[in-house]
Protein backbone atom coordinates (compact mmCIF):
# COMPACT_ATOMS: atom_id res chain seq x y z
CA UNK A 1 0.00 0.00 0.00
CA UNK A 2 3.01 2.30 0.48
CA UNK A 3 3.36 2.33 -3.28
CA UNK A 4 0.28 4.61 -3.28
CA UNK A 5 2.42 7.26 -1.63
CA UNK A 6 4.39 7.62 -4.87
CA UNK A 7 1.30 8.99 -6.65
CA UNK A 8 1.54 12.57 -5.29
CA UNK A 9 5.16 12.70 -6.46
CA UNK A 10 4.13 11.85 -10.02
CA UNK A 11 1.10 14.12 -9.82
CA UNK A 12 2.95 17.16 -8.55
CA UNK A 13 6.50 16.94 -9.91
CA UNK A 14 5.48 16.60 -13.58
CA UNK A 15 4.74 20.31 -13.84
CA UNK A 16 3.85 20.69 -17.57
CA UNK A 17 0.88 18.40 -16.95
CA UNK A 18 -0.95 20.96 -14.82
CA UNK A 19 0.54 24.30 -15.82
CA UNK A 20 -2.60 25.58 -17.55
CA UNK A 21 -5.43 28.01 -16.87
CA UNK A 22 -8.39 25.83 -17.86
CA UNK A 23 -10.64 24.20 -16.82
CA UNK A 24 -11.39 26.74 -14.10
CA UNK A 25 -13.15 25.85 -10.86
CA UNK A 26 -14.85 28.52 -8.68
CA UNK A 27 -12.75 31.14 -10.44
CA UNK A 28 -9.50 29.26 -9.72
CA UNK A 29 -7.30 28.47 -12.74
CA UNK A 30 -6.51 24.75 -13.14
CA UNK A 31 -2.92 25.21 -11.92
CA UNK A 32 -4.21 26.27 -8.47
CA UNK A 33 -7.16 24.00 -7.79
CA UNK A 34 -5.33 20.96 -9.16
CA UNK A 35 -2.49 21.40 -6.65
CA UNK A 36 -4.88 22.23 -3.80
CA UNK A 37 -6.83 19.06 -4.63
CA UNK A 38 -3.69 16.99 -4.04
CA UNK A 39 -3.75 17.99 -0.37
CA UNK A 40 -6.84 15.93 0.58
CA UNK A 41 -5.94 13.24 -1.97
CA UNK A 42 -2.47 12.77 -0.43
CA UNK A 43 -3.96 12.71 3.06
CA UNK A 44 -6.43 10.03 1.95
CA UNK A 45 -3.69 7.92 0.35
CA UNK A 46 -1.61 8.23 3.52
CA UNK A 47 -4.63 7.12 5.54
CA UNK A 48 -5.00 4.03 3.35
CA UNK A 49 -1.30 3.25 3.80
CA UNK A 50 -1.72 3.75 7.55
CA UNK A 51 -4.64 1.31 7.75
CA UNK A 52 -2.62 -1.26 5.82
CA UNK A 53 0.37 -0.82 8.18
CA UNK A 54 -1.83 -1.39 11.20
CA UNK A 55 -3.28 -4.55 9.72
CA UNK A 56 0.23 -5.87 9.22
CA UNK A 57 0.66 -5.59 12.98
CA UNK A 58 2.73 -2.41 13.24
CA UNK A 59 5.70 -3.89 11.40
Amino acid at each position, binding site marked *: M*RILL*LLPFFGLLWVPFYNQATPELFGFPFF*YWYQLLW*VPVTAAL*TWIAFRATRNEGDE
Partner: protein
Amino acid sequence: MGTAPHINWTALSVFIFFFALVTVMGFLASRWQRGSGEAHLDEWGLGGRRFGTWITWFLVGGDFYTAYTVIAVPALVYAVGAYGFFALPYTILVYPIVFCIMPRLWRVAHKAGHVTAADVVYARFKSRPLELAIAATGVLATMPYIALQLVGMEVVIKALGLTGELPLTAAFVILALYTYSAGLRAPALIAFVKDLMIYIVVLVAVVLVPMKLGGYGMVFAKAGAAFDAKGGATGLLLKPSQYLPYATLALGSALAAFMYPHTLTGIFAANGENTIRKNAIYLPAYTLLLGLIALLGYMAWAADVHPATPNDTVPALFNALFPSWFTGFAFSAIAIGALVPAAVMSIGAANLFTRNFWKAYVNPQVSPQGEAKVAKIVSLVVKFGALVFIIFVPTQYALDLQLLGGLWILQTFPSVVFGLFFNWFRGTSLLIGWVAGLGIGSWMAISDGVKPVHTFMIGGDPYAMYTGLFALGVNIVVAVVVQLVLSMFKPSGAQGVASRA
Protein backbone atom coordinates in the same frame (compact mmCIF):
# COMPACT_ATOMS: atom_id res chain seq x y z
CA MET B 1 -1.36 52.33 1.29
CA GLY B 2 1.85 51.24 2.93
CA THR B 3 2.64 51.37 6.60
CA ALA B 4 1.65 54.66 8.15
CA PRO B 5 4.00 55.88 10.87
CA HIS B 6 1.14 56.65 13.29
CA ILE B 7 0.18 54.21 16.00
CA ASN B 8 -3.03 52.25 15.58
CA TRP B 9 -4.23 52.16 19.21
CA THR B 10 -7.14 49.72 18.82
CA ALA B 11 -5.00 47.25 16.94
CA LEU B 12 -2.16 47.73 19.41
CA SER B 13 -4.42 47.08 22.41
CA VAL B 14 -5.73 43.83 20.90
CA PHE B 15 -2.16 42.88 20.06
CA ILE B 16 -0.92 43.51 23.60
CA PHE B 17 -3.84 41.57 25.09
CA PHE B 18 -3.04 38.41 23.13
CA PHE B 19 0.67 38.79 23.66
CA ALA B 20 0.12 39.04 27.40
CA LEU B 21 -2.16 35.99 27.29
CA VAL B 22 0.47 33.77 25.69
CA THR B 23 3.15 35.12 28.01
CA VAL B 24 1.16 33.94 31.02
CA MET B 25 0.56 30.61 29.28
CA GLY B 26 4.26 30.29 28.53
CA PHE B 27 5.20 30.64 32.19
CA LEU B 28 2.41 28.34 33.40
CA ALA B 29 3.41 25.71 30.83
CA SER B 30 6.14 24.29 33.07
CA ARG B 31 3.38 22.80 35.25
CA TRP B 32 1.50 21.31 32.32
CA GLN B 33 1.77 17.53 31.81
CA ARG B 34 4.75 17.42 34.11
CA GLY B 35 6.54 14.11 34.44
CA SER B 36 8.57 12.65 37.26
CA GLY B 37 12.19 13.70 36.80
CA GLU B 38 11.80 17.39 36.22
CA ALA B 39 15.37 18.57 35.78
CA HIS B 40 16.04 16.03 33.02
CA LEU B 41 16.87 17.02 29.42
CA ASP B 42 14.08 14.72 28.23
CA GLU B 43 11.69 16.86 30.23
CA TRP B 44 12.95 20.31 29.27
CA GLY B 45 14.01 19.53 25.69
CA LEU B 46 11.36 17.00 24.63
CA GLY B 47 8.45 17.69 26.99
CA GLY B 48 8.93 14.25 28.56
CA ARG B 49 8.27 12.51 25.19
CA ARG B 50 4.60 12.36 26.09
CA PHE B 51 2.93 14.43 23.36
CA GLY B 52 -0.06 12.64 21.82
CA THR B 53 -1.62 13.10 18.40
CA TRP B 54 -3.34 16.43 19.04
CA ILE B 55 -0.53 18.15 20.89
CA THR B 56 1.93 16.98 18.26
CA TRP B 57 -0.38 18.24 15.53
CA PHE B 58 -0.54 21.71 17.05
CA LEU B 59 3.15 21.76 17.93
CA VAL B 60 4.52 20.59 14.58
CA GLY B 61 1.94 22.64 12.70
CA GLY B 62 2.85 25.72 14.70
CA ASP B 63 6.52 25.04 14.31
CA PHE B 64 6.77 24.06 10.65
CA TYR B 65 4.40 26.70 9.21
CA THR B 66 6.22 29.66 10.72
CA ALA B 67 5.37 33.35 10.98
CA TYR B 68 7.92 33.98 8.34
CA THR B 69 5.97 31.66 6.04
CA VAL B 70 2.84 33.74 6.54
CA ILE B 71 4.80 36.83 5.51
CA ALA B 72 7.20 35.44 2.89
CA VAL B 73 4.99 33.09 0.85
CA PRO B 74 2.38 35.75 -0.05
CA ALA B 75 5.26 38.19 -0.59
CA LEU B 76 6.83 35.88 -3.17
CA VAL B 77 3.46 35.18 -4.79
CA TYR B 78 2.78 38.92 -4.91
CA ALA B 79 6.16 39.53 -6.53
CA VAL B 80 6.39 36.66 -9.05
CA GLY B 81 3.07 34.79 -9.18
CA ALA B 82 2.82 31.04 -9.83
CA TYR B 83 6.48 30.33 -9.04
CA GLY B 84 5.89 31.29 -5.39
CA PHE B 85 3.39 28.45 -5.15
CA PHE B 86 6.13 25.80 -5.03
CA ALA B 87 5.50 25.96 -1.27
CA LEU B 88 2.30 24.00 -1.93
CA PRO B 89 3.72 20.86 -3.61
CA TYR B 90 6.59 21.11 -1.10
CA THR B 91 4.29 20.96 1.92
CA ILE B 92 2.20 18.18 0.34
CA LEU B 93 5.12 15.90 -0.57
CA VAL B 94 6.73 16.32 2.83
CA TYR B 95 4.09 14.11 4.52
CA PRO B 96 4.49 10.87 2.57
CA ILE B 97 8.21 11.29 3.36
CA VAL B 98 7.47 11.83 7.06
CA PHE B 99 5.13 8.83 7.05
CA CYS B 100 7.77 6.50 5.66
CA ILE B 101 10.84 7.72 7.57
CA MET B 102 9.94 9.35 10.86
CA PRO B 103 8.21 6.49 12.71
CA ARG B 104 11.38 4.44 12.25
CA LEU B 105 13.61 7.30 13.38
CA TRP B 106 11.37 7.81 16.42
CA ARG B 107 11.57 4.11 17.31
CA VAL B 108 15.37 4.11 17.25
CA ALA B 109 15.55 7.33 19.25
CA HIS B 110 12.97 6.24 21.78
CA LYS B 111 14.58 2.88 22.45
CA ALA B 112 18.00 4.36 23.15
CA GLY B 113 16.92 7.69 24.63
CA HIS B 114 18.36 9.80 21.81
CA VAL B 115 17.44 13.48 21.89
CA THR B 116 18.88 14.68 18.56
CA ALA B 117 19.47 13.42 15.01
CA ALA B 118 23.21 13.52 15.69
CA ASP B 119 22.67 11.14 18.67
CA VAL B 120 21.01 8.67 16.32
CA VAL B 121 23.82 9.03 13.78
CA TYR B 122 26.54 8.51 16.40
CA ALA B 123 24.85 5.43 17.82
CA ARG B 124 24.49 3.95 14.37
CA PHE B 125 27.91 4.70 12.89
CA LYS B 126 30.09 5.24 15.98
CA SER B 127 31.74 8.17 14.21
CA ARG B 128 32.40 11.30 16.29
CA PRO B 129 33.32 13.38 13.20
CA LEU B 130 30.04 12.47 11.46
CA GLU B 131 28.09 13.22 14.64
CA LEU B 132 29.76 16.61 14.88
CA ALA B 133 29.08 17.31 11.19
CA ILE B 134 25.37 16.58 11.61
CA ALA B 135 25.09 18.59 14.82
CA ALA B 136 27.01 21.59 13.47
CA THR B 137 24.92 21.62 10.28
CA GLY B 138 21.76 21.60 12.38
CA VAL B 139 22.85 24.51 14.56
CA LEU B 140 24.13 26.57 11.62
CA ALA B 141 20.97 26.02 9.58
CA THR B 142 18.73 26.91 12.51
CA MET B 143 20.34 30.18 13.60
CA PRO B 144 19.33 32.24 10.54
CA TYR B 145 15.91 30.58 10.64
CA ILE B 146 15.37 31.98 14.15
CA ALA B 147 16.49 35.37 12.88
CA LEU B 148 13.85 35.18 10.14
CA GLN B 149 11.11 34.62 12.70
CA LEU B 150 12.19 37.95 14.13
CA VAL B 151 11.84 39.49 10.69
CA GLY B 152 8.25 38.25 10.58
CA MET B 153 7.59 39.79 13.98
CA GLU B 154 9.33 43.03 13.04
CA VAL B 155 7.09 43.43 9.98
CA VAL B 156 3.87 43.32 11.99
CA ILE B 157 5.24 45.47 14.82
CA LYS B 158 6.14 48.07 12.23
CA ALA B 159 2.68 47.80 10.67
CA LEU B 160 1.15 48.58 14.07
CA GLY B 161 2.98 51.90 13.92
CA LEU B 162 5.64 51.10 16.52
CA THR B 163 9.21 52.09 15.75
CA GLY B 164 12.65 51.27 17.11
CA GLU B 165 14.13 48.01 18.34
CA LEU B 166 12.61 48.10 21.82
CA PRO B 167 9.28 46.29 21.13
CA LEU B 168 11.04 43.47 19.32
CA THR B 169 13.66 43.15 22.04
CA ALA B 170 11.01 43.10 24.76
CA ALA B 171 9.02 40.40 22.97
CA PHE B 172 12.12 38.29 22.57
CA VAL B 173 13.29 38.65 26.16
CA ILE B 174 9.89 37.42 27.34
CA LEU B 175 10.11 34.49 24.95
CA ALA B 176 13.61 33.64 26.12
CA LEU B 177 12.57 33.64 29.78
CA TYR B 178 9.61 31.32 29.50
CA THR B 179 11.42 28.95 27.15
CA TYR B 180 14.18 28.85 29.75
CA SER B 181 11.79 27.91 32.51
CA ALA B 182 9.25 25.67 30.71
CA GLY B 183 11.25 24.20 27.80
CA LEU B 184 9.32 22.54 24.97
CA ARG B 185 6.09 22.64 26.94
CA ALA B 186 5.86 26.43 26.45
CA PRO B 187 5.72 26.44 22.65
CA ALA B 188 3.52 23.31 22.69
CA LEU B 189 0.93 25.07 24.83
CA ILE B 190 1.20 28.40 23.00
CA ALA B 191 0.85 26.59 19.68
CA PHE B 192 -2.81 25.88 20.51
CA VAL B 193 -3.57 29.59 20.72
CA LYS B 194 -1.37 30.53 17.80
CA ASP B 195 -2.77 27.94 15.41
CA LEU B 196 -6.40 28.67 16.26
CA MET B 197 -5.78 32.39 15.74
CA ILE B 198 -4.05 31.82 12.40
CA TYR B 199 -6.88 29.53 11.23
CA ILE B 200 -9.46 32.19 12.14
CA VAL B 201 -7.51 34.97 10.44
CA VAL B 202 -6.92 33.05 7.25
CA LEU B 203 -10.45 31.67 6.96
CA VAL B 204 -11.91 35.13 7.49
CA ALA B 205 -9.48 36.63 5.00
CA VAL B 206 -10.05 34.06 2.25
CA VAL B 207 -13.83 34.39 2.56
CA LEU B 208 -14.25 38.12 3.14
CA VAL B 209 -11.50 39.58 0.97
CA PRO B 210 -12.70 38.03 -2.32
CA MET B 211 -16.26 39.12 -1.40
CA LYS B 212 -15.03 42.69 -1.12
CA LEU B 213 -13.02 42.38 -4.32
CA GLY B 214 -15.61 40.69 -6.55
CA GLY B 215 -14.83 36.97 -6.18
CA TYR B 216 -11.83 34.75 -6.88
CA GLY B 217 -12.26 35.06 -10.63
CA MET B 218 -11.71 38.79 -10.25
CA VAL B 219 -8.75 38.32 -7.89
CA PHE B 220 -6.97 36.07 -10.41
CA ALA B 221 -7.91 38.32 -13.34
CA LYS B 222 -6.54 41.46 -11.69
CA ALA B 223 -3.36 39.73 -10.53
CA GLY B 224 -2.88 38.29 -14.02
CA ALA B 225 -3.27 41.74 -15.58
CA ALA B 226 -0.74 43.17 -13.11
CA PHE B 227 1.82 40.47 -14.04
CA ASP B 228 1.21 41.04 -17.75
CA ALA B 229 2.01 44.70 -17.21
CA LYS B 230 5.03 43.83 -15.08
CA GLY B 231 6.50 41.27 -17.50
CA GLY B 232 9.60 39.16 -16.87
CA ALA B 233 9.41 35.71 -15.27
CA THR B 234 6.10 36.47 -13.55
CA GLY B 235 2.51 35.39 -14.21
CA LEU B 236 -0.39 33.23 -13.10
CA LEU B 237 1.22 30.25 -14.83
CA LEU B 238 4.81 29.07 -14.93
CA LYS B 239 7.15 29.75 -17.83
CA PRO B 240 8.56 26.52 -19.35
CA SER B 241 11.99 27.51 -17.98
CA GLN B 242 10.48 27.45 -14.47
CA TYR B 243 9.17 23.85 -14.58
CA LEU B 244 12.36 22.22 -13.38
CA PRO B 245 13.16 24.84 -10.71
CA TYR B 246 9.57 24.58 -9.42
CA ALA B 247 9.63 20.78 -9.15
CA THR B 248 13.16 20.52 -7.74
CA LEU B 249 12.57 23.26 -5.15
CA ALA B 250 9.42 21.45 -4.03
CA LEU B 251 11.12 18.05 -3.78
CA GLY B 252 14.37 19.32 -2.25
CA SER B 253 12.56 21.40 0.36
CA ALA B 254 10.30 18.45 1.22
CA LEU B 255 13.34 16.20 1.81
CA ALA B 256 15.04 18.88 3.92
CA ALA B 257 12.04 19.95 6.01
CA PHE B 258 12.20 17.28 8.70
CA MET B 259 15.98 17.27 8.93
CA TYR B 260 15.86 20.61 10.79
CA PRO B 261 16.33 20.39 14.57
CA HIS B 262 13.01 22.13 15.26
CA THR B 263 10.89 19.75 13.22
CA LEU B 264 12.80 16.71 14.52
CA THR B 265 12.30 17.91 18.08
CA GLY B 266 8.54 17.76 17.44
CA ILE B 267 8.96 14.18 16.15
CA PHE B 268 11.14 12.98 19.05
CA ALA B 269 8.70 14.51 21.57
CA ALA B 270 5.81 12.38 20.26
CA ASN B 271 4.58 9.52 22.45
CA GLY B 272 4.51 6.84 19.76
CA GLU B 273 5.04 5.79 16.17
CA ASN B 274 1.36 5.95 15.34
CA THR B 275 1.19 9.49 16.70
CA ILE B 276 3.60 10.41 13.92
CA ARG B 277 1.77 8.41 11.26
CA LYS B 278 -1.56 9.99 12.18
CA ASN B 279 0.06 13.40 12.02
CA ALA B 280 1.26 12.69 8.49
CA ILE B 281 -2.44 12.29 7.68
CA TYR B 282 -3.76 15.30 9.62
CA LEU B 283 -0.97 17.86 9.20
CA PRO B 284 -1.86 18.53 5.53
CA ALA B 285 -4.76 20.60 6.90
CA TYR B 286 -2.10 23.27 7.46
CA THR B 287 -0.97 22.89 3.87
CA LEU B 288 -4.45 23.76 2.69
CA LEU B 289 -4.20 26.81 4.92
CA LEU B 290 -0.82 27.69 3.44
CA GLY B 291 -2.23 27.48 -0.09
CA LEU B 292 -4.91 29.97 0.92
CA ILE B 293 -2.36 32.22 2.65
CA ALA B 294 -0.34 32.26 -0.59
CA LEU B 295 -3.39 33.65 -2.40
CA LEU B 296 -3.18 36.77 -0.20
CA GLY B 297 -0.42 37.81 -2.59
CA TYR B 298 -2.94 37.96 -5.46
CA MET B 299 -5.54 39.64 -3.27
CA ALA B 300 -3.05 42.46 -2.70
CA TRP B 301 -3.00 43.09 -6.45
CA ALA B 302 -6.78 42.92 -6.63
CA ALA B 303 -7.18 45.33 -3.72
CA ASP B 304 -4.72 47.79 -5.27
CA VAL B 305 -2.51 47.65 -2.20
CA HIS B 306 1.00 48.69 -3.04
CA PRO B 307 3.28 47.48 -0.25
CA ALA B 308 6.60 49.27 0.24
CA THR B 309 8.43 45.93 0.04
CA PRO B 310 6.98 42.48 -0.81
CA ASN B 311 7.28 41.49 2.87
CA ASP B 312 4.74 44.20 3.74
CA THR B 313 2.11 42.62 1.46
CA VAL B 314 0.08 40.87 4.16
CA PRO B 315 0.15 43.66 6.77
CA ALA B 316 -0.66 46.27 4.11
CA LEU B 317 -3.58 44.18 2.81
CA PHE B 318 -5.02 43.73 6.30
CA ASN B 319 -4.54 47.40 7.18
CA ALA B 320 -6.36 48.38 4.00
CA LEU B 321 -9.32 46.00 4.23
CA PHE B 322 -10.07 45.19 7.87
CA PRO B 323 -11.20 47.14 10.93
CA SER B 324 -8.48 47.94 13.46
CA TRP B 325 -9.49 45.33 16.02
CA PHE B 326 -9.29 42.52 13.49
CA THR B 327 -5.97 43.82 12.15
CA GLY B 328 -4.66 43.74 15.72
CA PHE B 329 -5.90 40.16 16.09
CA ALA B 330 -4.28 39.13 12.80
CA PHE B 331 -0.97 40.80 13.64
CA SER B 332 -0.84 39.21 17.06
CA ALA B 333 -1.50 35.84 15.41
CA ILE B 334 1.52 36.39 13.17
CA ALA B 335 3.73 37.63 16.02
CA ILE B 336 2.76 34.71 18.26
CA GLY B 337 3.31 32.57 15.20
CA ALA B 338 6.94 33.69 15.37
CA LEU B 339 7.31 32.76 19.04
CA VAL B 340 6.47 29.06 18.68
CA PRO B 341 9.04 28.19 16.00
CA ALA B 342 11.65 30.51 17.52
CA ALA B 343 11.27 28.69 20.85
CA VAL B 344 11.39 25.20 19.34
CA MET B 345 14.33 26.12 17.11
CA SER B 346 16.36 27.41 20.04
CA ILE B 347 15.50 24.26 22.02
CA GLY B 348 16.52 22.04 19.09
CA ALA B 349 19.81 23.89 18.67
CA ALA B 350 20.43 23.77 22.43
CA ASN B 351 19.79 20.00 22.50
CA LEU B 352 22.32 19.52 19.70
CA PHE B 353 24.98 21.61 21.42
CA THR B 354 24.45 19.84 24.74
CA ARG B 355 24.34 16.27 23.49
CA ASN B 356 26.75 16.33 20.59
CA PHE B 357 29.28 18.93 21.66
CA TRP B 358 29.18 19.42 25.44
CA LYS B 359 28.63 15.76 26.33
CA ALA B 360 30.83 14.50 23.48
CA TYR B 361 33.84 16.76 24.02
CA VAL B 362 33.62 18.89 27.17
CA ASN B 363 32.07 16.76 29.88
CA PRO B 364 31.25 13.16 28.92
CA GLN B 365 30.28 12.45 32.55
CA VAL B 366 27.52 15.07 32.54
CA SER B 367 24.31 13.97 34.31
CA PRO B 368 20.87 14.35 32.73
CA GLN B 369 20.28 17.24 35.15
CA GLY B 370 23.55 18.84 34.05
CA GLU B 371 22.51 18.43 30.42
CA ALA B 372 19.25 20.26 31.06
CA LYS B 373 21.16 23.09 32.75
CA VAL B 374 23.56 23.48 29.82
CA ALA B 375 20.74 23.31 27.25
CA LYS B 376 18.72 26.00 29.02
CA ILE B 377 21.64 28.41 29.01
CA VAL B 378 22.47 27.63 25.38
CA SER B 379 18.87 28.32 24.36
CA LEU B 380 19.28 31.82 25.82
CA VAL B 381 22.56 32.37 23.99
CA VAL B 382 21.08 31.19 20.68
CA LYS B 383 18.10 33.54 20.92
CA PHE B 384 20.24 36.46 22.00
CA GLY B 385 22.53 35.80 19.03
CA ALA B 386 19.59 35.85 16.62
CA LEU B 387 18.33 39.11 18.11
CA VAL B 388 21.71 40.82 17.84
CA PHE B 389 22.02 39.52 14.29
CA ILE B 390 18.70 40.93 13.18
CA ILE B 391 19.26 44.31 14.85
CA PHE B 392 22.80 44.91 13.66
CA VAL B 393 23.16 42.99 10.40
CA PRO B 394 21.24 43.73 7.17
CA THR B 395 18.18 41.47 6.83
CA GLN B 396 19.43 40.27 3.46
CA TYR B 397 22.26 38.37 5.20
CA ALA B 398 19.74 36.47 7.30
CA LEU B 399 17.77 35.61 4.15
CA ASP B 400 20.94 34.48 2.35
CA LEU B 401 22.10 32.39 5.28
CA GLN B 402 18.69 30.80 5.67
CA LEU B 403 18.77 29.85 2.02
CA LEU B 404 22.23 28.31 2.40
CA GLY B 405 21.00 26.68 5.62
CA GLY B 406 18.31 24.84 3.67
CA LEU B 407 20.95 23.56 1.28
CA TRP B 408 23.19 22.50 4.18
CA ILE B 409 20.53 20.71 6.20
CA LEU B 410 19.51 18.75 3.10
CA GLN B 411 23.05 17.30 3.04
CA THR B 412 22.42 15.58 6.38
CA PHE B 413 19.62 13.49 4.83
CA PRO B 414 21.77 10.49 3.80
CA SER B 415 23.51 10.24 7.19
CA VAL B 416 20.29 10.50 9.20
CA VAL B 417 18.04 8.38 6.99
CA PHE B 418 20.13 5.78 5.16
CA GLY B 419 21.30 4.14 8.37
CA LEU B 420 17.68 3.46 9.29
CA PHE B 421 17.04 1.45 6.15
CA PHE B 422 20.35 0.01 4.92
CA ASN B 423 23.13 -1.75 6.70
CA TRP B 424 25.63 -1.05 3.97
CA PHE B 425 27.00 2.47 4.50
CA ARG B 426 29.72 3.29 6.98
CA GLY B 427 30.28 6.62 8.70
CA THR B 428 33.35 7.49 6.66
CA SER B 429 31.60 7.27 3.30
CA LEU B 430 28.62 9.29 4.52
CA LEU B 431 30.94 11.92 5.99
CA ILE B 432 32.85 12.27 2.72
CA GLY B 433 29.52 12.52 0.85
CA TRP B 434 28.40 15.24 3.26
CA VAL B 435 31.63 17.18 2.69
CA ALA B 436 31.22 16.89 -1.08
CA GLY B 437 27.54 17.92 -1.11
CA LEU B 438 28.05 20.80 1.28
CA GLY B 439 31.17 22.04 -0.50
CA ILE B 440 29.85 21.88 -4.05
CA GLY B 441 26.39 23.16 -3.11
CA SER B 442 27.71 26.14 -1.16
CA TRP B 443 30.26 26.98 -3.82
CA MET B 444 27.63 26.89 -6.59
CA ALA B 445 25.07 28.86 -4.62
CA ILE B 446 27.59 31.52 -3.56
CA SER B 447 29.04 31.91 -7.06
CA ASP B 448 25.45 32.36 -8.32
CA GLY B 449 25.10 35.28 -5.89
CA VAL B 450 23.33 33.21 -3.20
CA LYS B 451 20.44 32.09 -5.38
CA PRO B 452 18.58 28.83 -4.79
CA VAL B 453 18.59 27.80 -8.43
CA HIS B 454 21.61 26.98 -10.59
CA THR B 455 21.58 26.94 -14.38
CA PHE B 456 23.45 24.10 -16.11
CA MET B 457 24.28 24.28 -19.79
CA ILE B 458 23.74 20.86 -21.35
CA GLY B 459 24.28 20.65 -25.10
CA GLY B 460 23.83 24.39 -25.42
CA ASP B 461 20.46 24.40 -23.63
CA PRO B 462 20.01 25.91 -20.18
CA TYR B 463 18.56 23.68 -17.46
CA ALA B 464 17.93 25.30 -14.09
CA MET B 465 17.33 23.35 -10.89
CA TYR B 466 17.45 23.68 -7.10
CA THR B 467 21.13 23.71 -6.17
CA GLY B 468 20.47 21.88 -2.89
CA LEU B 469 18.94 18.89 -4.66
CA PHE B 470 21.85 18.73 -7.10
CA ALA B 471 24.26 18.83 -4.15
CA LEU B 472 22.30 15.99 -2.51
CA GLY B 473 22.76 13.96 -5.69
CA VAL B 474 26.54 14.60 -5.56
CA ASN B 475 26.50 13.75 -1.84
CA ILE B 476 24.83 10.38 -2.41
CA VAL B 477 26.95 9.44 -5.44
CA VAL B 478 30.18 10.25 -3.57
CA ALA B 479 29.00 8.28 -0.51
CA VAL B 480 28.17 5.25 -2.68
CA VAL B 481 31.48 5.38 -4.57
CA VAL B 482 33.55 5.74 -1.39
CA GLN B 483 31.60 2.91 0.21
CA LEU B 484 32.25 0.69 -2.83
CA VAL B 485 35.96 1.43 -2.58
CA LEU B 486 35.99 0.78 1.18
CA SER B 487 34.05 -2.44 0.72
CA MET B 488 36.78 -3.78 -1.53
CA PHE B 489 39.13 -3.70 1.45
CA LYS B 490 36.71 -4.78 4.17
CA PRO B 491 33.59 -6.91 3.86
CA SER B 492 30.49 -4.71 3.82
CA GLY B 493 28.30 -4.21 6.85
CA ALA B 494 31.04 -5.57 9.09
CA GLN B 495 30.25 -3.13 11.87
CA GLY B 496 26.45 -3.35 11.65
CA VAL B 497 26.03 -3.41 15.40
CA ALA B 498 22.50 -2.24 15.95
CA SER B 499 21.58 -2.84 12.35
CA ARG B 500 17.80 -2.69 12.16
CA ALA B 501 17.11 -1.83 15.74
